């Protein structure tokens, strides 16, 4: 996965567009209304989202309809899952090391008292 996925979504307006598209395919005008920013802004952000693979577009009559593509979201999901796994394994080792320290201390105490 590329850090581009995060960077593309680091913009709050683009996230609002993505959220608006969660309910399905939409024309630019609908999006302008839903995210309440100027059309030129929506168009610019849609272009960035399109270039990064987050949205696809198809013509319908005079309109262009935008919808989400699943791939970058799956990448994001895979990244989060992988990172969580890495940390779960790390925390297992952390717990083992804590136990080892306590056993070592107990052994030392025993040695000292005998």
């Amino acid at each position: 996965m590329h850090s581009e996925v995060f960077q593309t979504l680091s913009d709050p307006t683009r996230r609002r567009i993505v959220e608006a598209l969660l309910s399905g395919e939409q024309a630019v005008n609908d999006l302008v209304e839903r995210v309440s920013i100027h059309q030129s802004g929506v168009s610019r952000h849609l272009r960035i989202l399109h270039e990064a693979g987050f949205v696809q577009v198809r013509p319908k009559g005079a309109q262009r309809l935008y919808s989400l593509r699943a791939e970058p979201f799956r990448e994001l999901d895979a990244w989060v899952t992988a990172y969580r796994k890495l940390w779960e394994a790390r925390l297992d080792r952390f717990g083992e090391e804590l136990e080892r320290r306590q056993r070592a201390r107990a052994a030392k105490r025993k040695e000292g008292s005998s």
Partner: protein
Amino acid sequence: MIKHPPGMTSESRRRIRLERTYQAPIEDVWELWTTKEGIESWWGPGGFRVTVKSMDLRPGGKLEYVMEAVEPEQIEFMKKAGMPTAHEATLRYTEVVAPTRLAYLHAADFIPGVEVYDVSHLIEITETANGVRMTLTFDAMHDEHWTNMAAAGWEQELDKLGQALSS
């Protein structure tokens, strides 16, 4: 004002959070995070050795370490993946409050195929009746709202996305 998608507003879903409770003195927990020997004992995955080069434990200070594959299997894996068998990493502390709170920025390393990206981490340690509770929170987006979507509630978002895509 950012609008939250349905079902995504609860605090529990805001970030990626791992929680463990250990039967150990709180000082031991803090030491494992904040000493050279402590970090070296658990940070690296099996088959790798971690060597701390420097540790400057204060906000703005750095931890520098080297992670090196030492077992044949891991050395082979790194070579096959076209990665060096040893790599250096640095993390930057942003908050240090002994023995309860530690925060730092660190590139999310060691996931094959993933580009390096700065992730903020927060470790909170509290004594409870059941032991020492440690929670680790990480935020890849440096942004609560987005992590909200990328974290535990994400599967739900993907489901919704799947429905949106197939309708």
